[in-house]
């Protein structure tokens, strides 16, 4: 990362996803079968109690905040005690929506029972900054605590901004990532009526027969630290944030710009930030939502930036579905796991690429690789583009 010149280390992370809770279960999930028969995928039998001091505290947290705190717990356990002043530690978090379940429940309560029955916790539970604020409060992080809400690019933008605060020397450590839990009946209807959801209930990014995304949820949280300070405290450095890009299509509220020109520019910004050439990139972790439009534009953008053949490209959304604002967080976790296991997980369910996909998409079996700089893309409604480049620790 450019700026004050500090390198940015990742020293801990945690994951909560329908395919697995905790990084190891998540990895096994990524290698397992994808979603083939559902328009939504949620964490089954979620129990928030292990992550709260009592049931009252759990109940006054929306599920999206519960996910965030659960992932943060794993991240902090991995990272170990951070020896920095609280004012030098921040929380830069991402979410697309926030506590939508709470809002929807309380709207129903108001209609059925009247205004006097609306919960006094509605506001603190539904506000989109609640999850990031909860992390800041629980871990006593008194530096910047901000939430980025750029739809499905939110967590990627959060990670990029968090890394910049460390690189610039404004913080010694920043907790970042993203969370989403917005699979409500109303939201599902909204996405379905805009024909974004898969009508077949199968998430198959880049496949010729892809027909929309499967609506998911989850969270991942990362501890970013100044590299030299992490070394000095003897931390185990897992990976490095090498660069980040952020821009906008300024084209259409939902459709990507033709040819993915916004995405191309975004990837080039990230490469420039990392001071890397396209040929230095060894894996593309694609946004790859399984919608016809996104995957076509993204594949064109990747081909334009990296030439032919492209680096191996994968999308984990065949397994995870699309967790909106948490997408970039789950994908960053997948990248770190692909470093650890020296395998690129396959794009689940995808067997026959569309004619418009001129990329080396990893399909079928996981592919062995020598870990190297990896770019993770995420794009959000509103024309928001985010690219993050992560590298193995060395």
């Amino acid at each position, binding site marked *: 990362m450019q700026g004050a010149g500090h390198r940015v280390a990742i020293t801990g992370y945690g994951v909560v996803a329908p395919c697995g809770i905790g990084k190891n279960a998540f990895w096994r999930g990524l290698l397992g079968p994808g979603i083939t028969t559902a328009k939504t995928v949620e964490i089954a039998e979620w129990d928030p109690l292990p992550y709260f001091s009592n049931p009252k505290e759990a109940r006054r947290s929306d599920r999206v905040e519960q996910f965030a705190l659960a992932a943060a717990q794993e991240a902090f356990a991995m990272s170990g005690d951070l020896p920095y002043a609280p004012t030098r530690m921040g929380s830069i978090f991402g979410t697309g929506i926030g506590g939508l379940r709470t809002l929807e429940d309380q709207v129903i309560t108001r209609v059925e029972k009247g205004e*006097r*029955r609306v919960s006094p*916790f509605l506001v603190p539970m539904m506000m989109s900054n609640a999850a990031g604020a909860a992390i800041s409060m629980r871990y006593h992080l008194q530096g910047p605590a901000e939430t980025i809400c750029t739809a499905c690019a939110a967590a990627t933008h959060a990670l990029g901004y968090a890394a910049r605060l460390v690189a610039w020397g404004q913080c010694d450590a920043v907790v970042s990532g993203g969370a989403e839990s917005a699979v409500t009946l109303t939201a599902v209807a909204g996405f379905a009526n805009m024909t974004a959801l898969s009508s077949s209930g199968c998430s198959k990014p880049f496949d010729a027969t892809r027909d929309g995304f499967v609506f998911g949820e989850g969270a991942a949280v990362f501890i970013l630290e100044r590299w030299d300070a992490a070394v000095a405290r003897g931390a185990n450095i897992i990976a490095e944030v090498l660069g980040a890009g952020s821009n906008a299509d300024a084209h259409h509220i939902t459709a990507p710009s033709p040819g993915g020109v916004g995405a191309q520019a975004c990837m080039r910004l990230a490469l420039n930030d990392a001071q890397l050439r396209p040929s230095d990139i060894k894996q593309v972790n694609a946004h790859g939502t399984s919608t016809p439009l996104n995957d076509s534009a993204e594949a064109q953008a990747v081909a334009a930036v990296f030439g032919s053949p492209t680096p191996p490209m994968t999308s984990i959304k065949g397994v995870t579905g699309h967790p909106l604002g948490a997408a970039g967080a789950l994908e960053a976790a997948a990248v770190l796991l692909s470093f650890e296991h020296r395998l690129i997980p396959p794009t689940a369910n995808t067997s026959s690429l569309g004619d418009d996909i001129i990329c080396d998409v990893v399909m079928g079996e996981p592919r062995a690789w020598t870990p190297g700089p990896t770019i993770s893309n995420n794009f959000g409604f509103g024309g928001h583009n985010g690219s993050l480049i992560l590298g193995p620790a060395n």
Partner: protein
Amino acid sequence: MSQELFDRFTKCAVELLSVDASKVTREARFKEDLEADSLDLVEFVMALEEEFSVEVPEKELEGITTVGQAFDLIAAKAK
């Protein structure tokens, strides 16, 4: 004091405030003994209103700090 009413009151407190039933005594102070903040109390009063089919205007809650005071207020309304 009706034990049946107090048991129902206690049940609400246990559920809403996440406290052990043994702590819900007439002398218990919401803030200090039951660790309930002002938003907890709003939610708790809502639950009591549902449980006892009563209405407690906000004004009547002024000055109420203990379980006994709150219970008496509810019990007087619950006919």
